[in-house]
């Protein structure tokens, strides 16, 4: 497929936003059961959720560039019964709304304790909203992944690994950002987030590698023979019916060399997994927040490459019909 930059930015940006919100909310839920110190509502939880919201909004803006008719975008919420895209269109504003409410409640201290257990664990109103937000966030990951995994003849995508990768890569980038963010606003959480970031990064590395290996060994179901219905091992296209190109030649192929594809694969593997981890731990050891932020920036650039590759790697069966100009 041709990687559309709007979609590359949409999926990576909302991934960061979702991951960062999950990180902030994890911090708060650990503190509710007193496994972590409680942080400043405004500085950490409120601001953190607001930054997450910023990424979600940026993603939404990027998505608008993908639509031919963005003014009609509201219609896209109507077919949630059958379309994962429609479900995403509902889940994204839901996440944004809940993250916004969560942030506002922290800013203004609207945080009544609903319930205190005998052990001292508190159930606060923000926790309830945060839990709803986390559920919506997971639903959004599912929708985003299923948009791709549900197209069965894009065989590179049609696997549960697609959903798992969206979930893990998004969460990973959000946690990497949370480390840097915590180092500025809540230094006692840095270690906690760093451990989680490492665990999620390793998990994401394993599942992404698994999908790369799977895709290396794919057997395509469609062939020239099934596309034309002609039983002969030698079929050559002589003309695709036009010479100046069409949507079919522009939208479904990346137009890059095999070498470029190979290189970008290795670049993203390095930029997404080992290098950010290295910078993050270096930053933590030297106590330098900027180095931790650099880790996030490198990882985000790596994720752009990863997403580009994800789209470019998918081989659409329609390409069988568009092989020769003539």
């Amino acid at each position: 497929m041709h990687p559309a930059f709007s979609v590359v930015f949409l999926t990576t940006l909302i991934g960061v936003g979702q991951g960062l919100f999950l990180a902030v909310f994890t911090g708060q839920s650990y503190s509710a059961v007193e496994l972590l110190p409680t942080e400043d509502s405004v500085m950490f939880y409120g601001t953190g959720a607001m930054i997450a919201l910023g990424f979600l909004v940026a993603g939404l803006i990027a998505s608008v560039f993908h639509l031919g008719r963005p003014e009609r975008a509201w219609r896209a919420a109507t077919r949630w019964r059958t379309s994962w895209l429609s479900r995403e269109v509902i889940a994204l504003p839901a996440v944004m709304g809940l993250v916004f409410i969560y942030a506002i409640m922290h800013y203004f201290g609207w945080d009544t304790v609903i319930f205190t257990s005998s052990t001292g664990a508190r159930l606060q109103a923000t926790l309830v909203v945060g839990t709803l937000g986390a559920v919506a966030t997971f639903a959004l990951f599912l929708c985003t992944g299923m948009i791709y995994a549900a197209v069965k003849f894009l065989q590179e995508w049609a696997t549960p690994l697609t959903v798992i990768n969206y979930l893990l890569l998004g969460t990973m980038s959000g946690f990497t950002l949370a480390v840097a963010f915590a180092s500025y606003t809540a230094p006692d959480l840095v270690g906690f987030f760093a451990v989680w970031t490492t665990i999620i990064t390793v998990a994401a590395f394993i599942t992404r590698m698994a999908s790369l290996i799977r895709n290396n060994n794919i057997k395509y179901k469609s062939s020239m023979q099934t596309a034309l219905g002609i039983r002969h091992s030698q079929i050559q296209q002589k003309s695709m019916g036009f010479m100046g190109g069409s949507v079919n030649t522009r939208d479904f192929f990346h137009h890059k060399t095999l070498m470029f594809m190979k290189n970008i694969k290795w670049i993203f593997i390095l930029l997404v997994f080992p290098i950010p981890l290295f910078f993050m731990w270096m930053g933590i050891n030297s106590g330098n927040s900027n180095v931790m932020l650099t880790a996030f920036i490198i990882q985000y650039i790596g994720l752009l490459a990863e997403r580009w590759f994800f789209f470019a790697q998918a081989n659409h069966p329609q390409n069988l019909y568009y092989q020769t100009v003539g």
Partner: protein
Amino acid sequence: MTQLALVIDLNVCVGCHACVTSCKEWNTSGPAGTMCDDNPYGESPTGTFFNRVQTYEVGVFPNTETVHFPKSCLHCEDPPCVPVCPTGASYKRENDGIVLVDYDKCIGCRYCSWACPYGVREIDEHEKVMKKCTLCVDRLYDESLPEAERKPACVMACPTSARLYGDVHDPESEVSVAIRENGGYALMPEWGTKPSNHYLPRRKTRLHIHEDELQRADNPLTKEQREHAAPVEGPILDDTTSW
């Protein structure tokens, strides 16, 4: 239930592109608005088409065969392009099975074009909505047209009658008979889309000549075992006379 569709006879198609041009002409002049056409006489013309004719070479020289292959929306019975549409702009009509796009609802997200394995949905780069073959739905029921013309423009245009049109659910229709009797098949059956349009394969017309036909078994001369006289030695009349 009715399922209108085309049957394309690859044995007959000569690759003249008459269906391509008549399709574009009819559909770009219709009430649904123009189909974009950039640089039509320039270096790299590009635009939206509902129908394309492609050419393939089958086999290795000298045993090759040229196959012209018209391709448009197949109006699948189980169209994967419909459920994925987030707006409901992409839909399949209950009454005649035609798959259509509502240009007033489409947001141009291109998801349906990803979900069609045949690559027959083309976004209009100017109107920014998804377009595809409508089976000339605006001709089929138009009572102001003479009855013989109430069929797709491509079918009307084809000089070799390689395109048949009709209801593939009616077992006695011309198209059903053609599919049944001439080996009609569907494209990419592996995806379970159940295309309504069918293709008729190339068919070889072979002349079988049996030895019997070269030498009649019931030749009376053979039967009576009469031999021809042995050739005469020396000059015969033919050698000396010219007629």
